[in-house]
């Protein structure tokens, strides 16, 4: 079974209100040394055993469906099957 992880993060110049909110809350937990928090999506995709072009298909899924290129970047990592 092929497993792929697509990470989708807001581009660095785009405001990440979610990350800002977490950053602002950390002092309440007693954590004061964090300089930045950015929050994005982690998408775990599992393919059929038989599939050949996992990487290529994942790129398509990420580009067309998971990320909006206007505000987001993504990375695709095909996990080693043994790593599963």
């Amino acid at each position: 079974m092929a497993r792929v992880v697509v990470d989708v993060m807001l581009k660095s110049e785009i405001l990440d209100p979610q990350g800002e909110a977490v950053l602002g809350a950390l002092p309440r937990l007693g954590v004061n040394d964090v300089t930045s928090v950015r929050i994005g999506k982690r998408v775990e995709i599992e393919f059929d055993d038989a599939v050949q072009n996992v990487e290529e298909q994942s790129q398509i899924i990420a580009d067309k469906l998971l990320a909006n290129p206007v505000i987001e970047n993504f990375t695709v990592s095909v996990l080693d099957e043994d790593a599963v």
Partner: protein
Amino acid sequence: MSARIGIVTFPGSLDDRDAARAVRLGGAEPVALWHDDAVLKSVDAVFLPGGFSYGDYLRCGAIARFSEVMGLVRDAADRGMPVLGVCNGFQVLCESHLLPGALVRNAHLRYRNRPARLRVETNRTAWTAAFAPDAEVVLPAKHGEGRYVADEATLDRIEANGQVVFRYLDNPNGAMRDIAGVANEAGNVVGLMPHPEHAVEALTGPSTDGLGIVASVLAHLSEGAAR
């Protein structure tokens, strides 16, 4: 002397004024509490209103849990003070582990605003004491993350304990076992997703059933005083 019901304002609380109106119309005295204040101003009960505390980023209610006032609310709840959380307030109570389970994204993935028909499953809580057994109420439900979830063992346990307080008659969000509201074991802490504070006037709400919640806590408090 009327009961004093504290209403917490977190940054991002939206229904705090509305909760105060409901408390007033229900015959109690609303008392404003600020999230960062370390005082409960000798209130008799606490109402955590709806809204988007701290923007509701990350998970709804996750950040509000760490506010000053929630430490006090937890201690007061442990001593038996009635605490109600509505919508975001319910999420805060779950995140604070004062109530079992969690509230996650609606199964249909959208925010939805519709009047919800609910059955009051128990009147043995501080906030439902004045309802007839199996009463049906209509309250506005409006949320994007109101699907109640818990593991099966927890669900079985709270069912058995009578901690399921409100159930949807037309489940609007995919909540497990149609659960709309739950209580802690003692019955003094209650959370529900639909909004009683937006059903207190015929002119503005789908019903006036929300007044029953205030009537309940007043009955509960005066019973306690009588004891």
